[in-house]
Each structure stands twice: as C-alpha cells, then as structure tokens.
C-alpha cells in the first residue's frame, strides 16, 4: 500500500521533511510508526513519546490503533494549539 505521510510542527522539524510517500504493509497506525522508527534515529526520536503525538487519517483525527486499510493520507503532529 502506498501512503502519503505528512509531518507538522516539531515532528516535521525532527524528521526533517514535511511529507513523503511511504510503501508499507503495516496494518495499523502503530505498525506504521514502528516501521518508520526502525528506519532511522530521527524517526525513532520523533516517535519516542507517542503521548505527545496525534494522528489524522485522511484528515480526520484518529488514534494509533486505527487500521490503515483504505487510507491514503496519514498525518503526524503534536497536540494542536489553535485559537
């Protein structure tokens, strides 16, 4: 499965890019995070405390247990600070 993965705020800065295309067979968001973290230290560092990370699937807030089946766009970011 081919996913567009987006990073925002300090996750974008730590990983060093705003978006990338990822080939994965991970079944869930947690599986994708494990794959990415295994790649390089910058990913492992960014994902080291998942309590500080939020995820959106196809632009809807979701969680790490969610399945990736049918998903096209995954975004990782810190807790939001709008308003």
């Amino acid at each position, binding site marked *: 499965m081919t996913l567009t993965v*987006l990073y*925002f*705020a*300090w996750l*974008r800065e730590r990983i060093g890019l705003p978006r990338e295309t990822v080939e994965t067979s991970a079944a869930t968001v947690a599986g994708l995070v494990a794959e990415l973290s295994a790649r390089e230290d910058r990913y492992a560092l960014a994902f080291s405390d998942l309590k500080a990370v939020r995820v*959106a699937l196809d*632009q*809807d*807030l979701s969680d790490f247990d969610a399945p990736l089946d049918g998903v096209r766009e995954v*975004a990782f*970011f*810190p*807790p*939001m*600070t*709008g*308003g």
Partner: protein
Amino acid sequence: MAVRVQAQAFDYGAECAAFAAGARGAGAVVTFAGLVRDNAGALTGMEIEHYPGMTERALAAIESEAVTRWSLEAALIIHRHGPLAPGDMIMMVATAARHRAEAFAAAEFLMDYLKSRAPFWKKEFTADRADWVAARDEDEDALKRW
C-alpha cells in the same frame, strides 16, 4: 455561515459590523478575537503552521455543530496562519442567536474546539530562540464541558 483560513490580516471592525448587519433576526451577537500576546515583552514574532485541507474541514465541522446545537442565526470563523507580530490579531469567531446564553455558549464551544481540535501549531520567536507553544492541559479539559 463562513469559515476563512488565510495568511493575510483581516479587518476586525469591518468583520464585526458585517456580521451583525447580516444577523438581524438575532437578538444577541458574540465575538471573540485572539491576539498575539507578548507575555514577557521579549516576543519578536509568531509563526502559525496549519494543515491545509484538514484545517478547513475541521473548522467547517466545528462550526456546523455549533450552528445546529445552539440554533444559531449565523456563525463565522476566521483564522490566520503564517508569520504574525506581537499585537496582531490571530483569529476571530462570531455567533448570532436569539438569546445571549446561546450566543455565548456557542462562541465558547467554538473557541474550546479551535484550541485543541483544529490543526494549527504556534511557534514563538524571541531574539535568541524559537519554541513551539505547548498545548495546555486546561484547554484539553475545557472540551469536557460540551
């Protein structure tokens, strides 16, 4: 009902006037505006990052829920992104309802959701450093009342 996400500044007074003029069936209009506050006098600027596409979806969903829940006559959300200076207006919401309780509740609901559920991230700059603004526990807690 309108949602605008934009880099450019907006004219708060003109937006307030136009909103009230367009809500003549209402008895109560509430507006909230958020400004870049310089706590320690050391802030040189702010940068707001957002998630194009999701931002508009999230704001439209939040606004739609407020309109339904409080039977609003009208609602407005404007939120800037990009570089901002101390004193700049970051965003505003406006609500119009028959009575004041509904207009106030809807405006506070919109703000509570905007704070924690709309994909914006603030970075503050001083002369020698840049820090992402941390989400506050009390902002997350504020959501529980709705």
